[in-house]
């Protein structure tokens, strides 16, 4: 109560002009409480609004949950339709610290054919540096031997342009094949190291 009165007293001090307005308009000065019309309105509005919007907020949360579930199911359905497990082939990119390489872009060749290319934004690079993994490519591959090549472009040590290609041969069997292009710092030669790792 004290704070409330003080608040209004100070309001009166700093808003001397408001009193003048009231004097001009002939409005009866109603003391500190009378001068807090905007404050009271705000308080009323914010007290009323949550009550009004509460059901919306709750149903929005329920709706979000349902949409996330639907998104999940349709995502899985999409994969099952487009990339069945016996032919599915996916390539992921990870970046461990990235001190010696400022990643710029990445290209992926499967059996001599470019299947994916990506230009990285700053946000994406930061995401990778913090432990995220980008799914660079998902497609289908027949069983048998295949050659996979990753081309990495960026800025290397001493701000020099950095380009490197890494190749590996894989045998695709009847289960999902996942690869990871791992970009790591190599302190032994102050160069980035890039390798393609198979996931089981």
């Amino acid at each position: 109560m004290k704070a409330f009165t003080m608040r209004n007293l100070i309001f009166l001090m700093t808003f001397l002009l408001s009193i003048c307005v009231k004097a001009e308009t002939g409005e009866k000065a109603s003391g500190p409480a009378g001068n807090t019309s905007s404050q009271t309105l705000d308080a009323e509005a914010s007290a009323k609004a949550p009550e009004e919007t509460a059901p919306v907020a709750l149903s929005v949360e329920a709706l979000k949950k349902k949409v996330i579930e639907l998104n999940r199911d349709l995502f899985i359905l999409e994969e099952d339709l487009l990339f069945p497990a016996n032919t599915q082939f996916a390539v992921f990119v990870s970046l461990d610290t990235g001190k010696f390489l400022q990643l710029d872009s990445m290209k992926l060749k499967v059996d001599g054919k470019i299947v994916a290319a990506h230009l990285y934004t700053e946000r994406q690079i930061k995401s990778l540096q913090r432990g995220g993994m980008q799914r660079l490519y998902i497609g289908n591959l027949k069983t048998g031997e295949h050659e996979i090549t990753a081309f990495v472009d960026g800025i290397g040590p001493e701000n020099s342009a950095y380009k490197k290609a890494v190749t590996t041969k894989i045998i695709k069997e009847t289960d999902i094949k996942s690869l990871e292009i791992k970009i790591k710092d190599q302190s032994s030669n102050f160069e980035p190291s890039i390798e393609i790792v198979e996931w089981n």
Partner: protein
Amino acid sequence: MQKFFCYLLLIVSNLLCVSSVLASEEKTPSQAINTQAIHTQAKDLKYGTALYELYQGHAFEALSALNVAKLRGGITGHHDHPALIEGSLMLTYGMTHEAKVLFESLLLKKKDVGNEFVSESARNQAWFYLGKVLMLEQDLTASMEALKHVNSNNLKEDQPEIFYEWLYLKAFISQKLSSSENKPVAQKTAAPIKIKEPLTLVQIQKAETKSRVEGKPESFYSWLYENGEINQETTEALSQTGGYVWQAYLRYNLAIEALNDERYDIANQYFELLVSDLSLSLVNDENNSAELLALKDQSLLSLGQLHLYQNNYEQALTVLKRIKIESVFSDQALFAYAVAASNIEEFGLALQALNTLKGRELFTPWLQQTPYALAYLYEQLGEPELALEAYSAAVGHYENLTLKLEQEQAEVTETKLLQALSLQEASIEQELLSGQEIPLALGRDRVANDEYGYLQVDPSDFNYAELLAMESFQLGLRDLHDLYKLKFSLNRWEDQLGSFDSMMASRVQLRDERIKETLSVMASQKSEQWIKQQQIFSSEFDREVKTENSAFFMDDTQREYQSIIQRMTKNLELLPNGEEKESFARKLEHVDAYFSWWIDNQYSVNRWASQKQLNGLTRAVDQFKKSNETLKKHISSDGTNQRLFERINDGRTRLSILKLELGKNLDQASANLLVLVKEELGRQREETQNYLLAASKAQARLADALFINRTDDTEAQTQGELESQESDK
């Protein structure tokens, strides 16, 4: 910077509403949910992809990725971190209820029961996040309880980034709980507090100087605690060597608390110490400079207004002058400066400040009093002509504004509202790369928002500035944005389901072609003939076994010998009778007898060998029959495609239900926002009409006064002239 500007704008707008130092609310920093704190190099691809979305701020996509991972065997190698990430994502995505359920379920798990193991570190973080959820739900007592479960040493070691936030939250909540509004709650939970005499300014100054001289600033806070000035949680937070920004906010709140308790000299001291420390840290901390600078300006404004209240106008002017002209607090500072200057009769300075305010492009509703104030000041300066001119300008301004507000109130729509709010862009680089030009609108990922999903807007129409200060409006805007996002997601799936249909049609066609090929191959194999042959063999075998026909079971060598014997017998018949023929016949008889004995002797061996072969053949035929049946079954019914069709149809049904629900929610959320806008515009119109009335009356009063003065002057002049004429006569 934009994000921070928006945050400050909210505070400034809040302050503008009441325009008083004591109206300053207790402040909280941007309160980012520190998901960084629980990051680690992914040991699971599914987890890695979820993190990739999370760190780009795509909460919806990250939550979906985690949900997909759950259905696909879960995430391995990260214990309960994915659950913590999911909970914090839910908080970010405005799913506080779900987040609470998740954290509670994590904490309910027993410590060491098989797969149910939850590490101490995960439990610690779960308690922390649960505390945050409860705080967001305004259940401060429960929030405090949850936060108290956190093991401080472990948290500091595992997650130093969230450790300081935890300390801040505890102190903030305990301050809230012990504030007058929450006393009934606080009394239930807090330990009885010994009532001590409040400290005096001199005591505080002495203790502060002593701790500074000794180079132990933490001892000052311990001393304050010992003397009942601050609570234990605040002491703990302020005595740390890290977490400076959190500490600065706590110190600001302490000053505000002293103001609320009418201890103005103490509040003054707290503000001055805070401003001086913030000035120093601004030099050393470049990372948080924008946040610290804003807090410094706000502290200066509060201090200036406090001086104003205490009639220390000179000091008020000195303090307010330190606020940068480009600061978001400068409007208020200029107005306070004008009030202080006019109180010490520095009308020139006051006029300068008001003219600066008048010339500002972003004219906030709160500043609508400036045209009137300017005219009033001219009047006080004894410049009635200028004052009349200013009153007349003010009347014109208020008339126009009233009309504008009336029109806006009548015609406000969601589109107009969003145009006026001017959404801020988070990042356009991805779009630039993709070469697409999608306009910035609600529901787009590019719309900048903070960690709680509140949108960052830069209102181009400042009639909406005060609305943005309202929590209900902010929540409504956030919900609307989220709902549009969901709408985009559902629209995308709707298109996708259409393409799934085409995919299924080609799958069915491909299958039909394969069936045809298979059937033709099966026909060419003449499988029935082979099956019949096997049946004949089998029955012959059974029959010969019964009669123990050893000749039937002869092996290849024996059959070869048998054909030699038969050939020799035929050749013998062709020989002329005689001794030689008889000799051969006797030899052949011996051979035949030996052969008969041999096959009889080998009968059981041969029979078992044949049996073995027959068994193999029977198995192969059975297998063939089985495969044939399965193939026929597959041909006759298409289970896999059927299931895929069912999944697509199920998705379509769920999608249409959700779209309906979403439509209702969108309408409701939009209507709620517009109600708030109309109320706000109405309130502003009412205030403007008051100013219009006041300015009109003042204008009339002054015009009358001037007219009377002029008439008096003319009369006096005429009288004087007449008198002089008379005297001349």
